[in-house]
């Protein structure tokens, strides 16, 4: 088993109209423990511990909602502006894609 924590420093490569989905089992298996996701990627045989924000983004990824809408929702939840949230959402989403635990629908 190769274990590693999520890298959250990947450059944003996604756009607000991108839609992601969580890769299905058995490609990716995951569990949410107290708001933190631990995910197993079968292809790379690696376990990932997502930090709380990456976990939140991961849990909101549903295969239908654009990242822009997700950013809107989070901004509402946190009582802040979408301009403050959006860069982080794109960056965390890119990190999750780099770990191959989510994939682009469009």
């Amino acid at each position, binding site marked *: *088993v190769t*274990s590693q924590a999520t890298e959250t420093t990947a450059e944003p490569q996604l756009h607000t109209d991108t839609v992601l989905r969580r890769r299905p*089992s*058995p490609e990716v*298996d*995951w*569990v*949410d*423990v*107290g*708001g*933190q*996701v*631990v995910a*197993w990627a*079968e292809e790379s045989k690696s*376990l990932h*511990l997502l930090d709380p924000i990456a976990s939140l983004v991961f849990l909101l990824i549903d295969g239908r909602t654009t990242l822009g809408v997700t950013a809107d929702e989070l901004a509402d939840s946190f009582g802040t502006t979408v301009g403050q949230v959006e860069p982080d959402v794109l960056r965390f989403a890119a990190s999750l894609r780099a770990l191959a635990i989510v994939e682009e629908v469009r």
Partner: protein
Amino acid sequence: MSASSEFKRLGLPEDAVLPQPCSPCMDKLNNRPWHRTLAVTVGDVHIGVRGNTPATSDRLEEMLRALRAPHKDDEVAPNVSVSVGGEVGADARKLALVYRDHEIVARRRDQESLLLDLVELLDEFARLQTAEMPVVHACALLDREGSAFLLPPSAHGSLLTQLPRLEARELTMLSPRIHVLSKTGTHLTSRISDAGLSAVASSMGRNAWPDAPIKLWAVPGTGDGAFPLRPSEGLFGAFASVVTRVTLGAGPTLTMLGGAAEQIRWVGLPALSPAALSQAVVDLAD
């Protein structure tokens, strides 16, 4: 019980004997005087057990009669070595030891306790063949309330030298380093898996086995001492210790650990000297 997962991992036929790694430490142990090696069968695995004297070998032969596979005596490696002192003189004061390959895995003052340890250690091979239950590689202790503490496997060898200190605090270290958990991952069930070994243990007066709720699970960490972990961090650290994660599947393993994680106190435990480790364990238990 499934076919031998250890053999499957090694790509060996099921009738093969358990191989032994070559190392300078193994050579050093082999250079000591040993009596004959006895082949025994645990599950589907043929294992070599040897004693340091003819009397020890005779005692092993008698004790393990139901598991003996004499037709394999010439083929097995000395996977397990049992060293006990003599009846009288300086030899009688020697510690009784069990080695798995070259590593000391049991250490006792009296021979009978050591032989019971041996039964439980041999059962590790049966536990490794379990496919359908969570099986973990860990050092395990029971506290005075009968709750289980799981520690990184490397703690086992260190704590073998600290048993009096642990026992003074009513902490009992379990002999094996491979443990079967309940399907929920919340309890440690330490009963003997192999029917033949269970009968041997019974003949030695050991019939009761703890079914202990897991109170604390320490996973390897860095630093100077034990430190608290969030359940998610503990689960992340514990996943690799589940030796049946391949047969169970990663998803069910994560679900099992995830369900148990909130009920367990998780800590990170760095590599420490035996004395510092035993003190850390005592502190955690208080």
